[in-house]
């Protein structure tokens, strides 16, 4: 039936006036929408993986053993995420130490990494990736991840560290593990996977763990262990704990050329989980005025700091969990 028969011109006009009178429905602010979408998407991935597991198991009885869930979850996730979509470059190798393989080939700084890539570090290998999204993504010894998408990794062993940077990266990164999907909410965090548990340590910000049985958050300064028995309670984890030490061996690169001394020192302190303390107000003001030039590319954190201090002539001291700085 045509509208003219169904409504008539007057009916159509009246509906228009009615809707106009009511005005637009309230839109969800973009930041809220994006945040919620990331969390629901993480949960959806868990549900899909579990659904696949159940389907594969066919008519057989559902096995309650958590280990079986874990294995099937990873397999399901691999199947789901490695779709027929083309491989897209999404990161650059910032640092590689020891044996690091990307798709079976040795990786070197500057190499581009694309989606679907398989990344593996040997017992002596460590890797830092600079994601195009702005995140720093690092792998410790004996780790393996698959790049499911530009913002999603599947982790099957070892330890990874994610840093969204001091100003926050573009969108969250998700790491799927056999124990659930972890999403960053502007943070620095580490996941360590063993044969029977996942440990989530948060240095700054907040992360969310989405599981079949619900969502959990882990706050800065705490460590949570997830095993076959579920999600354990939080334990304190200081930003300067040795638990983070390996992360400093493959730091992100910082381009000092054109940056202020204040920016560099802020970055350095964040990389090391230190509190940056200025000797006095003048020190901070001076640091904000000093412009650096040159490069510290390829240098470790300590060598980089020594180099910059020789250029910019400032004094510093490491006192416990703080970096004390004086700039004249």
């Amino acid at each position, binding site marked *: 039936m045509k509208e003219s028969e169904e409504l008539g011109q007057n009916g159509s006009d009246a*509906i228009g006036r009615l809707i106009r009178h009511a005005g637009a429905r309230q839109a969800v602010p973009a930041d809220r929408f994006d945040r919620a979408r990331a969390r629901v998407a993480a949960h959806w991935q868990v549900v899909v993986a579990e659904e696949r597991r159940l389907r594969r198991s066919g008519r057989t009885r559902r096995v309650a053993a958590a280990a079986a869930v874990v294995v099937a979850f990873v397999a399901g996730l691999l199947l789901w995420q490695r779709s027929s979509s083309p491989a897209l470059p999404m990161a650059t190798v910032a640092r590689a130490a020891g044996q690091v393989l990307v798709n079976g080939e040795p990786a070197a700084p500057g190499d581009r990494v694309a989606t679907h890539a398989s990344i593996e570090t040997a017992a002596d290998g460590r890797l830092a990736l600079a994601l195009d999204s702005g995140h720093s993504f690092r792998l410790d010894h004996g780790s393996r991840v698959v790049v499911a998408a530009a913002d999603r990794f599947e982790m099957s062993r070892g330890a990874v560290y994610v840093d969204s940077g001091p100003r926050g990266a573009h969108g969250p990164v998700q790491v799927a593990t056999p124990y659930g999907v972890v999403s960053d909410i502007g943070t620095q965090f580490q996941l360590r996977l063993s044969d029977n548990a996942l440990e989530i340590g948060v240095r700054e910000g907040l992360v969310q763990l989405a599981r079949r049985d619900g969502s959990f958050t882990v706050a800065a300064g705490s460590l949570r262990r997830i095993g076959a028995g579920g999600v354990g309670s939080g334990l304190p984890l200081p930003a300067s704990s040795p638990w983070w030490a390996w992360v400093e061996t493959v730091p992100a690169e910082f381009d000092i050329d054109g940056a202020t001394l204040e920016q560099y020192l802020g970055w350095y302190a964040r990389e090391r989980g230190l509190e940056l303390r200025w000797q006095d107000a003048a020190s901070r003001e001076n640091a904000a005025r000093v412009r650096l030039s040159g490069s510290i590319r390829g240098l470790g954190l300590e060598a980089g700091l020594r180099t910059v201090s020789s250029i910019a002539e400032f004094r510093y001291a490491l006192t416990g969990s703080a970096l004390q700085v004086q700039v004249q």
Partner: protein
Amino acid sequence: MAENPDLKLVRRLLAGDARSFDAFFGSYYPRLYRFALARLDGDADLAEDTAQVVLCQALSKFSTYRGEAPLFSWLCTFCRHEVSRQRKARGRVQGDRALTEDDPAVRSALDALLAESSLEPDVAVYEQDVRRLVKVTLDCLPSLYSDVLEAKYVSELSVNEIAERLGKSPKATESILSRARVAFRDAMRVLLRQEQGGDFDGPSSVLGY
């Protein structure tokens, strides 16, 4: 017989179809957010969390969804429970909002609307509720319908402009708009009749046009 579109969406979601997830989240999250916001004293943080929790709960229980109720009705059931839980947790029990659309009769009308009922009601209503009921009605229509109606009457876009946004021809867009108007009219009639139980002489009588 054509597959129930809600069941089809759920089936695709459970199969891991990314486009279906985008459609699902894009369509239902804003509606649930508004649904929660109206019941949580405008607390946007709480509404954000509530709508998110509801979608996560629903995803976990999708294997039990049989398509007997429209998907949005089904989600609203979760949302009512979650809102109630949130209000209790925050000691807001005394201040529960009494919304027209929470009245059992109106709720049943909304469910009927979601199930694409073709009742022929007549209604009269108070003007102060009309704005919200119009928005509730839009939220209960298929997203495509509510979006084109808002684009046409609130944003005042031309059919050609809407067609461009939708990636459809002007003729197809006009047809969608036409069906959307009919669906909206029927929906409002159902709602208003349920609320008042009186006679309705068309939308103009509601607003005094």
